[in-house]
C-alpha cells in the first residue's frame, strides 16, 4: 500500500511564521512560490537567498531566515510588492525579518560607511539598520 502524503497545513503553521506575519501584516502562506518577486528583484544577484526562498523559509518556520543577508540587501524598492500575483508585499516580510534580527541582536547588517553620503541616505540607513 502506498504511503500517505500529509498535505496538512498544520505542520507548517509555525510560531515563527506567525510572528513574521504579525510584524509584517502579510500572510506568508498566501505565497505559492511562483518566483516573480525574485525574477524582478534588482538586488537578487547580491542575495544569499532569493526573495521567494526567503519567504519559503518563513512558511516552513525556519528561523535560519534571520541569519540571511538577503533582507539587508533589500532596499524596500517594492518592485516585488507591485508584481506579486497574490498581493503579498514581500518588502514587508523582509522588514519583519530585519526587525526580528535586530531585536534578537543577530543582525548581519552592513557595518561599513561609504563616503560621501547625503543626510537623506544616512537617516534612511539608520532607520532601517538599527532597532
Amino acid at each position, binding site marked *: 500500500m502506498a504511503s500517505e502524503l500529509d498535505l496538512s497545513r498544520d505542520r507548517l503553521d509555525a510560531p515563527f511564521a506567525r510572528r513574521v506575519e504579525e510584524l509584517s501584516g502579510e500572510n506568508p502562506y498566501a505565497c505559492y512560490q511562483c518566483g516573480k518577486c525574485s525574477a524582478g528583484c534588482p538586488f537578487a544577484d547580491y542575495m544569499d537567498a532569493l526573495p521567494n526562498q526567503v519567504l519559503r523559509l518563513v512558511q516552513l518556520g525556519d528561523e535560519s531566515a534571520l541569519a540571511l543577508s538577503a533582507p539587508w540587501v533589500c532596499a524596500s*524598492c517594492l518592485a516585488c510588492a507591485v508584481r506579486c500575483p497574490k498581493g503579498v508585499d514581500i518588502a514587508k516580510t523582509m522588514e519583519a525579518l530585519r526587525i526580528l534580527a535586530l531585536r534578537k541582536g543577530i543582525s548581519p547588517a552592513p557595518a561599513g560607511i561609504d563616503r560621501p553620503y547625503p543626510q537623506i541616505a*544616512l537617516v534612511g540607513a539608520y532607520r532601517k539598520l538599527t532597532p
Partner: protein
Amino acid sequence: MKRLAYFPGCAMKDQARPDEAGTLHALALLGYEIAEIPRWNCCGTVYSLAQDDLMRHVGPVRNLLRVQGMGEKRVLALCAMCYGTLARSARFVQEPERLARINAFLDTEEDFRGGIGVVHLLTLLRDEVGYEKLPSHVKQSLNGLKVATYYGCMLLRPREFAVDDPDRPEVMERVLEALGAVPVPFPERTECCGAYLTVGRKDIVEERVGRILRSARGGGADLVVTTCPLCQFNLTERRPPEAPPLPVLYLGQVLGWAFGADEPTIAALLVGQPTPGEPVSSGGAR
C-alpha cells in the same frame, strides 16, 4: 492666488536647493501662494513597513499636525521620499486606534485629527494645473532636449500611493513635453537605484546606477530628470567610471529654467556635472 502648504524636507534646503528654487518660481507663475509649514522636521526618509512600530510615524505625523495647525487640508512635497513617507504615514494613522495611540504619545495641545492629503508636484501639475497650461509660461523652450525621465521607486510604489501607473507612468514625460523637451525610451526608469544602500553597500549602488545610466544613454538622452534627491545623489556620485556621465537634474530645476527663473540659482547644482544643452549623445567633450 491659491494657497498651498509646502513641506520642503532636508534636501530642499541643502543638496536640492535648485529644485526648490525652480519649483517655487514656477508655482508662483501658475498662481500658487506657497506657504512653507512652520517648524517642520525630518519626514523619516524611509517608511517603516512594520505593523507594531508606531514610533517611526511620529516624524511624519508631527509635520501633518503642523499642516492641520495652518488650517490646511493638504500639503505639497517635491522630494519623492518625503512624498512617500508623508502620504503613507497619513494613511497608516487614519486607523482610529493608531491615531489615538500616536496622539497620546505626541502629547501636543491639539490632537492630530487625520485627513491631511499629501500631493506631489507631478500630480499637482497634471490634475490641477493641467499640462495644457504649461506651454504659455515657457520663456525658454527646452527645444527638443532629449530627456530620460527617472521615476525610481517612491513616486510609483506602493500602488496605492503611485502618482501614475506603476508599470507605465507618463506624467513626467507629459510635463517635460509641455516644456519643449523630448522624452526618450528609458526601460530602467522605474528601477531602484539602490537608495540608502549607498551608505554601506556602495558596490551594489554603483552597479545599479551604471545600468540605469546606460539605459538612459541607450535611448539617446542628453540628461536625466528626477524628483528624488537620493536618486540624484546616487546617479551622479555613485556613477561607475565606465557609465555615461549624463547630467542629472531635478524636475523643478528644469521647470524653473523653462519658466525663466534666475539662471545662476537653477544652475547651482550643475557644478562638476556635464552641461545640459551640450548633447552628450553627439559626443561632447567629457
